[in-house]
């Protein structure tokens, strides 16, 4: 069966005054029907830009230079802006990081949900739209939806705002949802609520979910497959369980080691250094300046994506020789 989304060789660069930022540099990305994929990496690794590219809403001065984005068998890069607008929100939707600013402060939440519904279903009557808004609010477990539709964003808590934002993204029943760090700005208990909500909705609504996050805990909890990005390139793609058990890329290992564990009294391992400057990225493997296993070849040759014995896709010269620690 063909995948729901199949991205190949995506390159999105930002043409800034300081130089060309290679934010996404040849990324392949696949999402099957009805699955949850984690898109993982540090800030600046290209997770968000990848998803914005797929929706073709890369902000200025960014541009998609190369690649193909096949969605439900059609190439999104070949579509006109008008055709894309009909896909955004209706078939592919996205929620954003910061629930405090992801809703317009001037309008009631009811009218903001209605806006999306009306945008994609022009012939619905006012009453039908309101009914649907209430249904959406019930779906994301907002109590007293009939009252809440008249509330303004500033009257709601962060968790509620994030749930409204999710409801808005699901308003037209998309088949693919990008959730960009949906829990980053929320309290821990609220995080759990939002995560379980997303998990349930994904099953009920029969859609695919892409979790964009840097939190390996969330990855373990909700995803079936993980794609690890580093500095705009794919580091590793694997089944979630197998990735946690036995990572094949040193960067994945470092990410897993950086998660605090309550059952092991160890110092937390930090990944030394920062994500590289993407205007002038390191030669060869982009991770080599921070990699404890780096050798001569890593500075010279970009490692190809290879399939390992346990089915991982990994971009590392030494995956055969390394025995890396899981979580």
């Amino acid at each position, binding site marked *: 069966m063909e995948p729901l989304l199949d991205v190949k060789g995506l390159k999105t660069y930002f043409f800034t005054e300081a130089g060309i930022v290679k934010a996404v540099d040849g990324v392949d990305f696949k999402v099957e029907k009805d699955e949850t994929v984690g898109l993982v990496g540090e800030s600046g690794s290209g997770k968000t830009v990848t998803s914005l590219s797929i929706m073709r809403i890369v902000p200025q001065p960014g541009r998609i230079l190369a690649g193909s984005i096949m969605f439900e068998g059609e190439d999104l890069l070949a579509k006109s802006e008008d055709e894309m607008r009909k896909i955004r929100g209706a078939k592919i939707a*996205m929620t954003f990081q*910061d629930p405090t*600013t992801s809703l317009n402060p001037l309008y009631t939440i009811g009218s903001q949900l209605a806006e999306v519904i009306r945008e994609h279903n022009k012939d619905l009557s006012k009453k039908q739209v309101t009914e649907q808004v209430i249904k959406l609010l019930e779906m994301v477990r907002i109590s007293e939806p009939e009252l809440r539709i008249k*509330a303004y964003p500033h009257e709601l808590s962060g968790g509620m705002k994030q749930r409204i934002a999710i409801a808005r993204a699901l308003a037209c029943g998309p088949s693919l949802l990008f959730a960009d760090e949906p829990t980053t700005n929320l309290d821990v208990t609220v995080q759990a609520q939002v995560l379980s909500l997303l998990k349930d909705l994904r099953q009920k609504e029969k859609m695919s979910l892409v979790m964009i996050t840097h939190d390996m805990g969330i990855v373990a909890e909700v995803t079936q497959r993980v794609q690890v990005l580093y500095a705009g390139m794919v580091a590793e793609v694997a089944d979630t369980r197998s990735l946690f058990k036995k990572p094949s890329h040193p960067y994945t290992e470092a990410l897993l080691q950086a998660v605090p564990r309550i059952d092991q009294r160890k110092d937390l391992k930090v990944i030394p250094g920062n994500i590289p400057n993407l205007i002038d990225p390191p030669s060869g493997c982009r991770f080599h300046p921070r990699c404890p296993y780096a050798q001569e070849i890593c500075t010279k040759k970009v490692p190809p994506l290879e399939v390992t014995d346990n089915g991982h896709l990994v971009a590392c010269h030494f995956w055969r020789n390394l025995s890396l620690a899981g979580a």
Partner: protein
Amino acid sequence: MRIFKKTKQKTTNKQETTTTQRRGASQWAVGWRRFKRNKAGLAGLFIVLFYIFIALTSQWLAPYPPRSYLPLYQGEAGQPPSWKHPFGTSKAGLDVFSEVLHGARGDLYVGVGATAVSVLIGLVIGAIAGYLRGGAGDFILMITQVFYTIPLLPLILLFARVFMILVAQGFGLTLILLLLGFFGWSTISFVVRGEILRIRELEFVKASQALGASRWRIIFHHIVPNTLTPVIITASLLIAGNILTEVVISFLGFGDANTSTWGITIQEGITYMRTEWWTPVFPGLATLFAVLGFNLLGDGLSDALNPRLRD
């Protein structure tokens, strides 16, 4: 950081328990509640409303028509304040009280009208400057800065003199209104541009883009309405400035000689200030309170609506 935020929220919750319980309060409603608690702002609002009332009804309130020297023929020129002439009469025979009332009409017309013109121009130019990135936006910003830097008063005086010969008399106030409006939009434009640069990066803009909203809808439904709060605040302060400038222009004799304004009355009386203080003092006080009122209102609005000052 997180702990700090929480304690802060708790204290504000206590203060606003009564207000947050009500449902469905728009930002404006919340702003009004905050505004009501600000005594200076409220005073400003009452002053402004009072002036607007005077301006709208001056033709019925004033005992004498505008620029009428009737008291001279009644032998009552140069009299101190009395029951018949509450603010006295000028040497030439103007009833100062009537002139102050009619002046409110003329000066508010110029102050509010010029601001309206500036807001319109400033909104459009600021929105374009904020929306276009790169060279075109920078160029518009540069033009705005030029308008901001040039000394307005001499320029307006020059234009007022040049056009005064051309324009049929009686349109003098409208001419000053247009001049003030066309040259005074830069602050509005800066404010709008800055707000648009800020708002366009907020996530609800990205979110509505990601959910299929058209570019047109994003600009006019989501971005521009969010810039209105600071525009209203700036406009209120701009009205005060425009009134003051109009008074200066009239005082310097560049205004419309056939229409009552505070400036022209002050000018008539200033020579005889020593003996007949009432002629310049009352229109001067009228100017003072008008400017004060609009400034207080602007400050009050700013305190109530500015998100950065919000607790």
